[in-house]
Every structure is written in C-alpha cells, then in structure tokens.
C-alpha cells in the first residue's frame, strides 16, 4: 500500500507525556451489551485525538469512562499528572461536551454557562466576564438572557460548548459536538477550536462520525469498530499548522482522508451484521 510521507501508523507516537491512559478497559452494560472490549489508549499532553467509528461502537462510552462517569467493568484509567484530592479521587480539570446539549431548560443561557463556576463557588458577578467571554467564543453573547427552548439545535450545542470552555480546562472531551450544525458554522467552530487549542495548549479528545473532520482537526485518529467496541487502527496526522483552506485542498489531506476512510470501511467490514 502506498503511504505518503505525511502518514505513519504509529500507535505509540505520543508527543507530550501522557495525561490520561486507558489500560485494557472493558465495559459491559447490565443488559449484557459489550460496549468496549480491551481498549488501551494513551493520550499525551497537548494532543488532539479523534475517536472515529460507526454508530454504536462505544465512542461515547469510552469518553464517559475517560471523564470518570461510569466505572469500567475491567481495566483502569490513569491520570498520571493530575492532583488527587483528600479522598484519593482524581481532581480532573475536564471540560465535557455531551452528545446532546444537556442544558437546564429552566435556566437562561447565561446561567447554564455559569453553572461550572457556580458549582465551584464563584458568584454571578465574579463569573460574568468569563461567562460572556465563553459565549462570545461561540457567537452567542447576545443570547445570554434567552432560554434554551428559544434556541435552535445548533445554538444549544454551542451553549453547551461555551459551558465546557468556561472553566478553561486542561482537557476537553467532546462527543460529536458539531454533528447538529450546518456546514458553515461547523467550519467556523472547527477553526475556532483549532485556534483555541493552539493558544491554550489544551488536550482534546474529540468523538466524531466524520472522516473529513477528524483529519482536519486531529493530530491522531483512533478508529474504532463495533460489537464489541474496540480500537482497530491509529493514524497519526502529521500536518502543517495552522490548518486552513490550503490544507483542506492539499494532496496530503485527500490522501489522509482516503487512508482513514479505508480504515473505517474495514471497521464496518469486520462486522458480519452490516
């Protein structure tokens, strides 16, 4: 198989020191569904990792387990660099964007975004500047006093993104955050995300269905296959930064998408039911 110089299959190619490590993680739900089987993954500081795979392959489950929501059935999740609290639990500095907007319908956009700070004991007045800054990043500053039901699906999702950004987390976990958005807004938020990622040095784990999005954004793509959910391929994306229109029309880009699509197809092919 001809592989261009921009591509290398290097599962262990982790740039920074690992910030989170999954070791042989399996998850079986009480109804017997094996959502994840023996998944191992090491994510380095400053990486932008995409989890790519068909519907139902356990991407959301993996992301939740990384966030500490729901225990793994077997295996462990390590945060080597993060502090532990008195009870021995990891104090994760995480921002999480759920697959659904997950807003409180009784609270205005402002109050929804304020929530993470409010839970940390920061008053409305003290939080105002940061909340408005986060809303500004997603272009919704003028909707601070609106209620979620007054927003479109994509706007709700952007509020949810603002809420994840407001704490300035070290690690950002995003579950298909842009799936409900139109092409233009999606592209804008992709670019914003890349800019903020470079600016703040975040580590991002990004779940997506889209081959193009994963290639455009990530430094590494983790391809997963369903039933049982598992990692079948890792693709390192060595590409120029900043990534822009030029990158998206470059031969490297199309080669990477071709390579990634192939991998994704083998993920589907590996399954008899589809």
């Amino acid at each position, binding site marked *: 198989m001809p592989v261009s110089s921009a591509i290398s299959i290097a599962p262990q190619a982790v740039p920074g020191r690992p910030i989170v490590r999954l070791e042989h993680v399996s998850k079986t739900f009480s109804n017997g569904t094996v959502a994840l089987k023996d998944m191992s993954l090491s994510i380095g500081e400053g990486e932008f990792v995409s989890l790519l795979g068909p519907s139902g392959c356990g991407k959301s489950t993996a992301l*939740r387990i990384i*966030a*500490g*929501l729901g225990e793994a059935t077997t295996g462990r999740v390590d945060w080597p660099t993060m502090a532990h609290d008195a009870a021995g639990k990891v*104090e994760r500095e*995480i921002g*999480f964007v*759920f697959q*659904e907007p*997950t807003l*409180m*319908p*009784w*609270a205005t956009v402002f109050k929804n975004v304020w*929530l*993470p700070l*409010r*839970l*940390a004991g920061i008053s409305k007045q003290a939080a105002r500047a940061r909340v408005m800054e986060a809303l500004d990043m997603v*272009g*919704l500053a*003028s*909707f601070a*006093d*609106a*209620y*979620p*039901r*007054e927003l479109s699906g994509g*706007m709700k999702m952007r509020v949810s993104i603002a809420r994840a950004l407001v*704490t300035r987390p070290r690690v950002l976990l995003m579950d298909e955050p842009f799936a409900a958005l139109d092409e*233009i*807004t999606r*592209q*804008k938020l992709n670019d914003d995300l890349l800019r903020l990622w470079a600016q703040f040095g975040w580590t991002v784990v990004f779940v997506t269905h889209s081959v193009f999005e994963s290639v455009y954004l990530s430094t590494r793509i983790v391809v997963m296959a369903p039933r049982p959910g598992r990692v079948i391929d890792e693709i390192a994306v060595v590409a120029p930064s900043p990534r822009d229109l030029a990158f998206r029309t470059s031969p490297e880009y199309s080669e990477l998408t071709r390579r990634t699509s192939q991998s994704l197809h083998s993920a589907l092919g590996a399954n008899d039911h589809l």
Partner: protein
Amino acid sequence: MTELQQSVVASETGEPQTQAESGPPPHERILRVIIPLVMLGGLIALWAWYVKAYNVPHYILPGPDLVAQAMVRDWGVLGPALLVTLTITFEALAIALVGGVLIAILFASSRWVEIALSPYMVILQVTPIIAIAPLILIYTSTTQQALLICAWIVAFFPVLSNTTQGLKSTDHNLLNLYELYGASRWQTLFLLKLPAALPYFLTGLRIAGGLALIAAVVAEFAAGSAGAGSGLAFRLLESQYRLNIPRLFAALILLCATGVAIFGATSLLSHLLLRRWHESAIRREN
C-alpha cells in the same frame, strides 16, 4: 475576524424575543373570559325558566333568585362556616406540601427509606378517608384537629408521589454533568433536582388542593357535630334536616366556588412558575 466569522456572528446579533408574551393573542383571551360567562348566564336562565315553567316547589328545587336571597340573608351563618372550611383546607394543604416535599426528598435520596415507608403511604392513600375519620375523631381532642388530619392525609399523597417521581426523573446527562463538576449533594438538590421536579410538584399541588377541600368536607360529614366552629359541610347537613333547601344550595355554591378558586389559584401559580421554560405552559408556535 474573518469574513466567515463576521457573517455567522452578524446573523445572530438581533436581540432574541425573550420579552414576547407567551399567552394567547388578545382576541382569544377575551373570548376565553366571555364564553364561560355567557355559558354560566345561560345555565342560570335555564334553571330559572325550568323552575317557573314547571312550578317546581321550592323545597325540591328553589329558583336562582331564592338561592341568592338565602345567600344574602344567611351570610351571617354561611360566611363564618366558609372561613372555617377554608382555614382547614389551607392549613392541611400547607402541611401536606411541606411534609410531602420533605419526604419526597428523603425517598429520592435513600432507596431503603422508600422501600420501608412507601407501602404505608399507599395504605394511607387507598383507605377511604370516611372510614378512618371516626377513629381520628376519637383520638383527637377537638373536631378541628380531626378535620385537619383527615384533609392532610388526603392532600399529602399526591404531593409526595408526584414530587418523588419528579426528583427521580432528573435527566441523567445533567446528573453526570453535575458529578463531573464536583457538585455537592445540596447543590445537586437545589440547583438541579428540585427545579427539574417543579412541574411534577405543581401537578401534585393542583390535585392536592381539590382533594384537601373534599376531605375537609367529607370528614366534617363524618364528625357531624355542631358548635361555633362548624364548617360549610355541617351547614349543608343542617339545612337538609330543616328542609331549608335554598340555604343548602347557597352552601353548595360556596363550596363549588371555593373548589374552583383553589383550582384556579394553583393553575395560575403553576403557569407563572413554568411559563418561561416548560412545554406545558408554552404555546406551540409551529
């Protein structure tokens, strides 16, 4: 800012219409008041006509004029009785609300407490109040107390079961979110679970309001004692014994009006609390 960004931002800088009225349009609102009033007037006219046309004796069915007269003439008796019934109803309702919500919080936070206690809550609910009223009358020192306890037992359950259901139906993703940001139990309760349970609680309140009145009346029938502190139910019975049918009707109308007023007040409260965000209080606009 790129041109792309500007266009996205520009398309959304228009202030959202958050101040828009969420109620029906004006002409519909007027009709909503007029139609029931016309209907009521029509029914009273029909009643008056029927009594006159068929010469119905006033000790069977008095005309509306006689009932109105009785209402004015006997106000000295009926007014205090109404006050007694209202006091019992609202006291019972208030205790039921506080108790129901507190026990619901207990149930939602501990499954074992719920497993231990909920059978007795159900037993209290399914036993007809008229059957326990005599016992309660024996155990309490005053009739007032007995009536209060009866009304409370009946009003308590809908508040409890609805609020418990509401507290348990909190969106799991939101619970995850709170957990992720290290929310304390109290923060989760006050900022998430209680607001999420509000629509359920308000449904319970509306049911409980009507039931508290019914229970206060039923229990007084069971008590049947006269005295300074007699409520509307006793005045009803008394009018029946004395064949003072116009007064009986007047008392009945007062009871109906009280029930309607309680329902209206709880519905209004519910609307005011939910009108900004809950589907039930928002007009569908598509």
